[in-house]
């Protein structure tokens, strides 16, 4: 599916993203990797899980893990409120819920507007940020979910 999305980007020259807030920072993911957006609901904690794995929730019969995106990206932890949301994404064929502070918008951007991330971080960390998208006065960090959760998968597997 990731490839399909990339293909879409390449073909159309446009990219549709869902942007969300973590603190004051705005991030976004490709809309094609999103399956559903739901309001926040308490999750069941798993024993010995890493700090960013909040637990699991029941999504219409199937159990999916929920990740606190703020912790995963090295930011201060989010305190979940009624206005928080869980973005259910399909990463490498697995459903993963991402806890975000607030889903802000659904934006269509031109591929030409994507700016590469500056080359100052180690390779592993740099791989998390696919690109930077300036929209209006904001800088939106376009996250590479596959890179983000290749390690997360390991954690879950562990």
């Amino acid at each position: 599916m990731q490839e399909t999305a990339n293909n879409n980007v390449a073909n159309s020259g446009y990219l549709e993203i869902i942007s969300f807030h973590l603190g004051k920072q705005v991030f976004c993911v490709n809309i094609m990797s999103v399956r559903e957006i739901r309001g926040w609901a308490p999750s069941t904690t798993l024993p010995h899980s890493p700090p960013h794995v909040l637990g699991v929730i029941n999504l219409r019969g199937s159990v999916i893990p929920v990740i606190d995106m703020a912790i995963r990206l090295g930011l201060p932890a989010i305190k979940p409120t009624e206005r928080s949301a869980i973005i259910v994404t399909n990463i490498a064929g697995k459903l993963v819920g991402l806890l975000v502070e607030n889903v802000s918008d659904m934006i269509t951007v031109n591929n030409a507007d994507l700016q590469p991330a500056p080359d100052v971080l180690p390779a592993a960390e740099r791989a998390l940020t696919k690109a930077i998208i300036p929209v209006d006065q904001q800088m939106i960090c376009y996250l590479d979910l596959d890179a983000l959760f290749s390690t997360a998968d390991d954690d879950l597997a562990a």
Partner: protein
Amino acid sequence: MLISRKLPLAAALLTVVSIGVASVVSLQIGSSAVNEKITEKLEAVVDGRRNQLETFLANLQQDLTATSQNNLMRIALEGFKYDWGFLGADVTPELKRRYITENPFPEGERQKYDTAQKPDDAKISSYDQSHERYHPQLREMAESRGWEDFFLVDMNGNVIYSVNKHDDYAGNLRSDALKNTGIGKVFEGILGNEVTDRTVFADYAAYPADNGKPAAFMGHALNSQMGMVGVIIIRVPSGKIADIMSNTAGLGETGETILLNSDGYLISDSIRTADNDMLTVKIDSDLQENAAGSAVVVGDLAGYRNMDASAAMTGVKFDGADWTVAALIDKSEAGASMVMMRNAILGLSLLLLLGAIAVSTWFSRSMTKPIEALVENMRRLAEGDTSIELAGEKRKDEIGEMVRSVAVFRNAAIEKVALEREADETRSQTEKRRHDREAAKAEETALMQQAVDSLADGLHKLSEGDLTIRLERPFIESLDRLRVDFNASVEKLNATLSDVSENIMGINGDTGELRAAADDLSRRTEQQAASLEETSAALDEITATVKSSSQRADEATTRVAEAKQSTDSSSKVVAEAISAMGRIEDASMEISKIINVIDEIAFQTNLLALNAGVEAARAGEAGKGFAVVAQEVRELAQRSATAAKDIKGLINKSGEEVKSGVTLVRETGDALGMIANHVNAINDQINSIATAAREQAGGLTEINSAVNQMDQVTQQNAAMVEETTAVTHRLTSGAASLESLVRQFNLTGSRHVSVPVQAAMPGPAHKTAASNPVGRSKGPTGVSASTAGSRPVQSPARNMLNTVARAFGAGKSNNPTAASQDDWEEF
């Protein structure tokens, strides 16, 4: 028979009878009391001894039982039994030889021999060694407990050990010599009946092994785990029993307590006899049979120790032995106190009898002697001898009465002779005095006539007003005082009339002064009336002022009440405003809740729209249109969320406004409350002003009554002035008439004064009446009231009072006399 003999005899007889009866009765009572006391004492003693004896025997049993459980006894028994076996068939003669015949100590002290083993003996006997080991301990035990002997016996009846080594030592208790003795019976009693848990006792009997001395035995089985292994037997300590029985405290010289066995033999040695009485002295008495139980019986006991004794007995039962404890005392000793009592009573009765005879003899003598003397005197008086001496007049008894009666007869006889002599002397003296008196009378009558004539002449002249007459010639002595008094009277009359004449002149002068004073008084009364009028006017004004201030105060009170009502209603309005604000707050809260719901709906809608957008994007080109719709929905949701947020802000703001409004309204309420308080304070002040006005009105009423009184006093003063004027006039005319009367007399040294008579001059009186504002109709003689007339004149004071009264309303004018007294005519 003479009275002097009868009286002593009667007294002696009476004394003998009364003393005799009293002593017989008291002796009877005393005797029974003493007997009862002795009986009680004997009972108490015998009961005490019985208890002591029972305690002692129980202790003895306990001791023996305890000893039988002592391990030492069993060890010693086993030791001696073992050694006994080694001594072979001739064990009895061998041991008797060693410890009796070869015993260095005499009989009675054999127990001091500890062992027959001698240091130089080549052969060592194990029995002697055991004896040396156990004998001192066992001897000490027997001696400390008072046992007379102590035996260890094996199951065959061999006495394998005894402390005192009498002939029974080393013998067999089943042998003919010992089986019928007390110790043999005890052994058979224990072994034959297999008594292992209690003591067995054999009563006192003569014991042949100890020279036939009386002995009683007590034994107990020695038990081991296998059963009975032997018997210990003691000889009962008779000495200790004797110690208990020999206590004779409270039993006098002859009394004692003894212990008898069932056959009536003594089994305790009596301390009153030198010999040993045990089992040798026997007492035959029915008392012992009656005393078989535990009850105490009392009775007489004859024969014992050659005494006739009182005795108390009671039974002691002990392990098959029926003993009797007896306490006894010689009757002669018990009755000794009775004999003493009888002798004392007899001696005392004799003394009383002698005393009674002596006293009665003296008493009869004292009565018969004066009677004899009186009889002699009466005989002499009857013969006419009045010189008799009477003794005993002062006695207070019947003889005294008799003597006094005789004295009365004697005195009557003496008096009769004296009276006859006196009557003869009186008669001759009276006759001589009568002659002298008649001569003196004739001379006196002539002199009296002369004096009366002279006095009549003087009186005649006096009646003609001549006060110069004097009687110069003296009268007879008895009437001369009459003359001197006449002269003095005329002189006095003359002086008096001269003084009267002078006084009349003085009175005339005083009358003039009196008139002037009356004038003055009249003028002042007038001035007072004027002052009263002014006071009345002033009071009028004051009354009006007080009334008006009272009205103002009332009005102010009304206004204050209205103001108070207004503040009360405003505070209600404030309360309502506050509650209205509260309701607004509640409504705002409700709106807030609804807005929250709308906000929630907007959020959910946003999420739905996002999901729709996601779906549309995934659908690619086909979903393009749908994506637009989803975008629109999202925008709508965001707008409604924004609107909800705005409304929330507005509502919060209005809530704050309401809060400040509530605070302000509350402050307004507080301010109104303060105003109400001030209004109340003002109300109090005005009330006190009204009260003060009322008090002033009260004060004015009092002033009114004072003015009223002053008015009355003024009236009375006016009346008094008129009366004074009239009296002055009467005084003047009285002085004139007095003067004319005095003139009728011819006085010596005459100094008649001419009095200016002013009978027809009512000037001052006239003036008084005219100047008086008070109308007068009934003046005294000559005082005219024509100027004043009979017209009623208003009193200024009264006028003022009425004004005041009217000022204070109808209630003040309810004095009915006020109206009727407007008119001064009444005065």
